[in-house]
Each structure stands twice: as structure tokens, then as C-alpha cells.
């Protein structure tokens, strides 16, 4: 039995825990504590790793890890991303500067992103359409990346599955 992992990262409130819950076959193991950051209207925040699990037909496991979103936990990002199948960066478009948020994660995972499949999922675009996804794509291009940028509602399983599908397509391209 082999184990593989998919990493989900993003700012506090971007929906990492919710995204894992949308697809995990077990209730996600959540390591939340009371949020004392008054600038973010959120009661709880992740300080460890959210954990979800999927078991394949042959017994192999896909572990879903949600990293703590705050930049002060950046030191663990590279550790947890080691050997991962892919990285999902969730961006909350309602935050003051989503493009800057994106850059934090692109820089935080810079060495892994030289080869690791990655997809950017942007949430809350219905209520906060700006900056548009094209602006995100341009920011990626300016930083030398071409990653898929998709609108996402992490409460919808299909949207989360599409993010996974996009990671898998990147792996397929790498194989051939």
C-alpha cells in the first residue's frame, strides 16, 4: 500500500478545511484554535494541518493536507509539500489584496513549484469579482508561472474535484 498526498494551502478563510471536507472519505481532522487575529472575521483558524483521506481501489491512499494559512507557518510549507502529487492554492477574492496573497504562496513554495503541479482556486468571485482571474493569470505570468486559475466554491464537491482533475492532467503531461 502506497500513500500519496495533495497539499491545499491558502490564506486564512480561503476554504482549505472546507475543500478537504468536500472530498474526504473521513471527517477531516481539524487542528483549529480560536482566532485572535481581529482583522479576519473568523472564529477559528488552523494552526496545524487539516487532514483528509481517500482510499483507492488497490488500497493506496491519497492524503489531503491543509497547511496553516498564516505566513508565520511558512517554515513548514516546504516540509509538508515534499513528495506531494500537487499543490492547490486557494485564494479568497474578498481579501484586500488577493494578488499579493497569491504571491506569498508562490514565493513560499518557490522551489517546489519548479516541477510540482499546481492549481490556483479563487473563491468568492461571485460577490467579489475584482481582481479578475485574468489579473491573477497575469501575475502568475509575471512571476514566470503558467498555472491554471479557476473560480471555485469549495463548498461544492464538483469544484474541488475539478481542481484535483487539473492537477492530474498536469501529472499526465509530465509522464508522456
Amino acid at each position, binding site marked *: 500500500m502506497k500513500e500519496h498526498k495533495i497539499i491545499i494551502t491558502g490564506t486564512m478563510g480561503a476554504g482549505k478545511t472546507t475543500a478537504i471536507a468536500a472530498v474526504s472519505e473521513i471527517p477531516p481532522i481539524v487542528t483549529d484554535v480560536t482566532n485572535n487575529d481581529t482583522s479576519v472575521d473568523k472564529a477559528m483558524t488552523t494552526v496545524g494541518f487539516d487532514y483528509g483521506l481517500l482510499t483507492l481501489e488497490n488500497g*493506496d491512499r491519497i492524503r489531503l493536507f491543509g497547511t496553516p494559512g498564516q505566513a508565520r507557518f511558512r517554515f513548514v510549507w516546504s516540509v509538508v509539500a515534499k513528495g506531494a502529487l500537487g499543490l492547490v492554492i486557494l485564494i479568497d477574492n474578498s481579501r484586500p489584496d488577493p494578488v499579493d496573497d497569491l504571491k506569498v504562496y508562490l514565493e513560499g513554495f518557490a522551489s517546489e513549484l519548479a516541477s510540482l503541479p499546481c492549481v490556483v482556486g479563487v473563491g468568492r468571485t461571485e460577490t467579489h469579482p475584482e481582481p479578475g482571474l485574468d489579473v491573477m493569470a497575469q501575475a502568475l505570468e509575471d512571476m514566470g508561472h503558467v498555472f491554471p486559475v479557476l473560480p471555485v466554491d469549495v463548498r461544492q464537491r464538483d469544484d474541488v474535484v475539478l481542481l484535483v482533475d487539473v492537477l492530474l492532467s498536469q501529472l499526465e503531461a509530465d509522464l508522456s
Partner: protein
Amino acid sequence: MELLKLGLVGLPPAEASLIATLFRLHKVEPSFIWTLATMPPFDALLVDAECEEALFLPLKGAGTRVARLGADANGASDRLSRPIRSDLLVRWLNAIEVEILHGGQDQFSSTLSTSKASHKGDEPMQTRPPPVTRPAEVLAPAPTVATGARTFKLRRWPSQELLKGDVNRIRMATLLSRRPLQVAELVSLSRVPESRCVAFVDALLNARLVDSTDLPAPNGAGALGRSPAAPSRPAVAPPKARGVGASLIASIRKRFGIG
């Protein structure tokens, strides 16, 4: 799932045995729906290049695709080169599968479930900032897809307007974002009919979102007689070295219910 049948005509026993072995290896992938057959009807025939047409014509049905296996395919869609390569064989089979099973139509009729359009009903579409152009860029006429053997590589993720919430377009764009691909490779990897792949790449070209490169001639060696350098790849362990193979990807897709 209906199995498609491949017949072999005129191939040396060792080569036929090799193909049979490749089929056994690929059968572990849920998406591989081909089988080797000895009796018609055949969906495809792989024929030795020296084989006379009269020998396999009786085996060929109205819809049977035929490819010749010989010394040099020269990029022709009805030829495969020796020594036979698993990836090129599967690519040819995948292209046939798309034509037969999907009849040239979209494999997936659904779009994104929540279709994150920024407008609903009669509300006007949100205006978006104009695409950014590089000041020094000379806007030469956009090249078209059907100009010889070329590869295409996405240089920026397309707009939602171009993707239209279409899962197939998202998949094609994702593949093109990863490395330069020929249209034939894109067809094989995406399982989207060639006509739609060409249309999408054309749209990307017109939007100046892809870089296109002409492939060197098949015998295009350098001045010192060396083969052209392979395109550069990320300098990290390839997926197979990390234990990631086509079967794992297929299993994950199946687990998530992804078609």
C-alpha cells in the same frame, strides 16, 4: 465498457509478442479499452510496411483504421516507426478511440457545475480589464495551427471567456501549460477530438496566449551530425521516479468519479 479491437498483420512474431506485452501492461489502467484480436471486425489494424494491401484488405471493415509499421513514420498519422514505442502506439490508439467512441463530438457535455460566471440571467457581464500587452511586442499575424509539425505551449492561463467553463477546454489548457505539445499529443492526452483541439489551439493563438515552435525535420541533425537537443524539462525527479504512473492517475480519477 466496449472493448476496441486491434489486429496485427504481417508483423514478425517478436514484434507481435512485444505489442501483446504492452497491452497486458496497459490493461491495468481503467481507461485502456483496447484488446488484441485475431478475427474481424477490427477497429484498427497495425500492418507491416512491406505487407501487400491485398493481404489485409479483406480484414479491413468500413471504419477500420490502418497504420503501417515501418522504418520512418515521418510524422504521418497512418504510420508508426520501428522500433515500436509504447507511448506512440497508445497515442495512435487513443486518437482512434476518440473518433470511434465520441463520434467527433465532445466527450463531456457538461460545463462547470456552478459555472462561476460573474453574471446571472439578464444581468450585464462584468467588465474586465483589457488584456495586458507587452509594449515592445510586434503584433505579427497570428500563426495558424495547421502549419506543419509544430508544438504549442501556453504562456498565460486563458480568460474565462475563452474557456467558457468547458471542462475539456480547461483540461486542454492545463496540458498545454505544462510542456510544449503537438496537436496529436494534445488529442491523445485530452481525449478530445482533433477538430476541437485544433479549434482551441487556434483560439489560443489568436489570443496570443501560446508560443508555437516548429519541430525540426525528422532527420534534422545538427552541424556535427548530432540529433537536436530535447526540450528542457524541469530539473526535478520525474513523476515516475516519485511513484506516479498512468495507473495511479487513472485510479485517482476513478476514485473521484472523474471521467
